[in-house]
């Protein structure tokens, strides 16, 4: 990081660029270290998302073994309240009954929230620690990687198509493309509209989450830059407290955003799948 502070303008861009570059493996550009084609693995994204997933697994495993019906412990109460919250959302917005929806929604909510939470960890902390082990690039927030957000939204999309076909039948699903939303006299328009509508679902799901978190990360980087580039000599007395105050403010605000984004992703998933379960549109 300290190398970036030497030249003022270029250093700032470089600092941000550096922070927004994934740890790439496979088919990567040797100079920019960006993915050169589809066949590049973002190791940091995979690592953090899987570690957080494993955290959920481990906690679930431990909790699932020590469930107590009569005297729930503090943590079980906490998890129960999350589950009841998700359960209420599903009951309120999902028509009919599908045993997959609620666990899916719960997984999305918790996993997305945890991945978002990585954003609240000081932006330089983990990359610096990784640098000590010789890892040059590290992007710690998996949800600022389009691969992650689209992985989830595409999975949801596959489920949407699956349940549409399962509930309405192949014919029924195709009929929806033909006669929705303008009736049988505007079939070509209907086809275009419906395809856009269906494709917009995974696209908006993935892009919304990515955009919010990417922007949030960027703001954290900019706030970090206040201290990083301007705090030299006596000026540090002014800029460092400002950085702390701004960082605190954005942290608190971002805590709201990450929860909201996780919640929105979950609710939209429920809503989209609910639409797939409705017989007549």
């Amino acid at each position: 990081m300290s190398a970036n502070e030497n030249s003022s303008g270029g250093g700032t861009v470089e600092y941000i660029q550096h922070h927004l570059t994934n740890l790439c493996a496979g088919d990567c550009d040797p100079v920019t270290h960006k993915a050169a084609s589809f066949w590049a693995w973002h190791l940091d994204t995979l690592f953090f998302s899987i570690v957080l997933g494993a955290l959920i697994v481990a906690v679930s495993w431990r909790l699932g073994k020590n469930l107590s019906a009569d005297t729930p412990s503090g943590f079980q109460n906490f998890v129960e309240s999350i589950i009841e919250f998700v359960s209420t959302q599903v009951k309120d917005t999902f028509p009919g009954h599908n045993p997959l929806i609620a666990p899916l929604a719960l997984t999305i909510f918790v996993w997305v929230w945890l991945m978002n939470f990585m954003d609240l960890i000081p932006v330089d902390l983990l990359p610096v620690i990784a640098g000590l082990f010789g890892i040059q690039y590290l992007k710690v927030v998996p949800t600022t990687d389009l691969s992650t957000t689209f992985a989830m939204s595409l999975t949801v999309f596959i489920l949407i198509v699956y349940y549409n076909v399962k509930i309405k039948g192949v014919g029924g699903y195709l009929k929806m493309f033909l006669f929705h939303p303008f009736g049988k006299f505007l079939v070509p328009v209907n086809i275009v509209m419906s395809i856009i509508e269906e494709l917009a679902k995974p696209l908006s799901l993935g892009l919304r989450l990515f955009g919010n978190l990417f922007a949030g990360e960027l703001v954290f980087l900019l706030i970090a830059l206040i201290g990083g580039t301007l705090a030299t000599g006596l000026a540090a007395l002014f800029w460092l407290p400002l950085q702390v105050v701004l960082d605190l403010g954005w942290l608190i605000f971002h805590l709201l955003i990450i929860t909201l984004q996780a919640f929105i992703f979950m609710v939209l998933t429920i809503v989209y799948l609910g639409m797939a379960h409705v017989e007549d549109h």
Partner: protein
Amino acid sequence: MNITVTLIGQMAAFVLLIWFVNKVLWGPLNALLAERQKRIADGLAAAEKGKHELELSEKNAKEALRNAKLQAADIIAQSEKRASEIVEEAKDNARAEGERLITAAKAEIEQEVNRAKEQLRAQVASIAAAGAEKILKREIDRKAHDDLLKDLASQI
């Protein structure tokens, strides 16, 4: 920032995570919550039932108490009546006995009076005869003047 093969890895991780959360967390916890809900509902129903039974038995107890009181009052009233009856009977008996005794005494007194009168009459006759003997200074044939003497005695 490009979409890479990471996408496929993330999708696989996501699907596995959903499966696992469903298996280990959602399933057991949801079953647990449902069971707890049922138990609470059962407990509340039992409490309600118990309350109802308590009310019922309280009502029964009150009813029994009331009946017992009524019965007791009844018994007391009956015995009081019986007691006054016995007293009345005794009074009647005593009155009758007294009257009987009085009648008997009266009869005896009458008898005594009569007897005394008889004796008196006999004595008066002899006294009158003796008086007349002294007055007339002669023996009076008792048999000849018996009628006169009896007449005299009956006037006493």
